[in-house]
Structure formats: structure tokens, C-alpha cells
């Protein structure tokens, strides 16, 4: 084993996991909008703005495992997490829609699909962002040591 390619270690796997989740989420969102033809609401677009760059940033951070991937990836993931959390609160009716920024176009409360019978699209998004933030935080701690 040479020094430039130390093989698959735990750090690399953590980053790979975060990349895989963000890629699955990006493709999933494209499946909803392009194949199933669900129109994305404004909050969905903000979440996409945070999720799509993660696919590229984390992929380049994998070769080799780069502290920069955490530096640039974590703010994106946290930003997306905040929007997703707000979206889910709105969707579940905790926050009233009148207080929300999305009144024109597609309603952010539009119910399109419940994956496995209970997971709404905003819940899926929040789950993905939570996982990415979690993995990147663990990686950050490991790289600091």
C-alpha cells in the first residue's frame, strides 16, 4: 500500500457515505420533478440549492480525504437542514402557511406522496440533511485529532 492511496479507511467511508446520501437525495428530487412531474415549491428549490452542490463538493473531497470537504460541505448541509426543518414544520401545520414566504405558485403544503406510507417529501429531505450533517460532524472531529 503506497502513501498516496492509503486504501479505504474510516474517514474515507464517512465522507463517501455523506456523498452517497446527498447523491441519492439529488437523484430522488429529480425523479419527483422530472419523472413523476411534481412541481417543486419554493422551499423545495432552496433545499435543492443546498443539496446539489454537496454532490460535487463531497465527491472532490474524497480524493484524497480533504478537510476542505467538511469546511465547504458542512455550511451547505446545515443551511439545507434549516430549510428542510422549516418546511416540515410548515407541512405538518406547526407553522401557519400565512406566515410563510410561499403563497404564489405551488403550495409548500401540497401533499404529493408519502413514501412507505408515512414519509413525506420534506421529511425525506430533513432525514437526508440530518444524516449528511451528522456524518460530516463526526468526520470533522476525527480530522481534528
Amino acid at each position, binding site marked *: 500500500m503506497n502513501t498516496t*492511496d492509503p486504501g479505504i479507511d474510516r474517514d474515507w467511508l464517512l465522507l463517501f457515505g455523506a456523498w452517497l446520501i446527498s447523491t441519492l437525495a439529488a*437523484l430522488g428530487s429529480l*425523479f419527483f420533478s422530472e*419523472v413523476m412531474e411534481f*412541481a417543486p415549491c419554493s422551499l423545495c428549490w432552496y433545499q435543492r440549492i443546498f443539496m446539489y452542490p454537496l454532490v460535487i463538493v463531497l465527491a472532490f473531497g474524497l480524493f484524497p480525504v480533504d478537510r476542505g470537504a467538511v469546511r465547504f460541505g458542512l455550511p451547505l448541509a446545515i443551511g439545507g437542514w434549516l430549510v428542510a426543518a422549516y418546511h416540515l414544520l410548515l407541512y405538518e401545520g406547526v407553522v401557519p402557511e400565512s406566515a410563510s414566504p410561499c403563497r404564489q405558485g405551488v403550495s409548500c403544503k401540497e401533499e404529493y406522496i408519502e413514501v412507505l406510507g408515512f414519509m413525506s417529501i420534506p421529511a425525506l429531505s430533513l432525514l437526508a440533511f440530518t444524516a449528511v450533517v451528522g456524518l460530516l460532524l463526526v468526520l470533522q472531529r476525527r480530522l481534528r485529532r
Partner: protein
Amino acid sequence: MKKKTLVIATVIALIVAFAFAASWYRGAEAERVETIADESTTVLVPNHAMTLGPKDAKVTLVEFFDPACETCAVFHRPVKELMEQHPERIRLVLRYAPFHHGSEDVAKMLEAARLQGKYWEALEVMFATQRRWASHHNPQPELLWQLLPAAGLELDMERMRQDFAGFEVASIVEKDIEDAATLGIRKTPGFLVNGRPLPSFGLSQLQQLVAEEVAANYSD
């Protein structure tokens, strides 16, 4: 190199999975719509729907359209040409899918004009002047109230306003919106040829599907 291989293999696997899922979903969706169309003819062609062409034609082309949709205006002539290519064999059924905010009112205006026997004339004027009353995806039905009589259409405008506000006209548009949702119409124009949706959107795909149905239903 193992890592790079893993990432590249993952990317390829995900793209292939996406393509398979997309083609499976489209197939399942087409089947679902065909089943609904088979089971209930009124979902596809309700009694109130405006039709063109012989009633006993064996090919029924249902078009869900939005009066404010530019592509619908572009498709208006090719669809009529398509009917001329297969004379007496196609029945066109026009239905509303007013997805633009405000175009529901334009659909109601068309129905009100229809009550005075001026549906096709009003439709022509509406598409011809679409750029003026629906520019930048912002329909302004108020403008049409002036454009219709200005185009030389002999409409009793007072009666038209009454019909426009009436229950009859509203319920037709409502039923169309409901059926569009049931039949999975999310974009306009949405075509169904004998209950079959287009495999992908496009004029040539429409021409091909119509040709297929004509060939399947007429022997020569």
C-alpha cells in the same frame, strides 16, 4: 485506485437505477391511465365536453389544454392538420387544464361563448391574441373581454357575463380539472389517444400514436 472504482461504479449504478425506475414508472402510469379510461368513459369524454369530428370515429383524441399555455396555442393548428390527414376517423375532444393562475376564467369565458354557438371562433381569437392577454405567463382575462368583441365576434356580451358567472359553466371547468388530476395530466397540452398517453411529449410522438391507433382500428 479501489476508491475511484467504487465511486465510479456507484455513479453508474445510480444512473442505471434511475433510468430503470423512470421507465418502469412511466409504463405503470400509462397502464393506470388506460385502465381508468377503459373503466369509465365519462372520465375521458364527459357528456359536456366540446368535440370536433364524427361521433362514431374510432380514434378519440382527448386534448387537455390551458388557454394561457403557449405550447397549446402552437399545437392548435398541427392537431387540426392531423385530423385532416385522417379524415372522418378522429374525434377531437377538448378539455380544460387551466394550470396558470387566472386562466380558469378564460376557460369559463370559452364555455360562455359556446352557449352562444361561438366556441371555435372564440378559441381562435383567444389563441391568436394570447400574446396580448397572457404575456409572461400572467393571464389577464379582463383584456379578453375587450379583445373578443374587437375581433368581430358577434357575442351578446351581457348574456356572456351572466353565463360566465353561472353555475353551469363553472361546474364544467371544475369537472375537467378533477378529471385531469385523475388521468395524471400535469402538463399542457396533455394528449390521450384512445386513452393512451404519449410515451414522451412532442408533435411527432402524437402523430405516431394517432397513426398507430388509426391503423389498429381501420383495416385499410
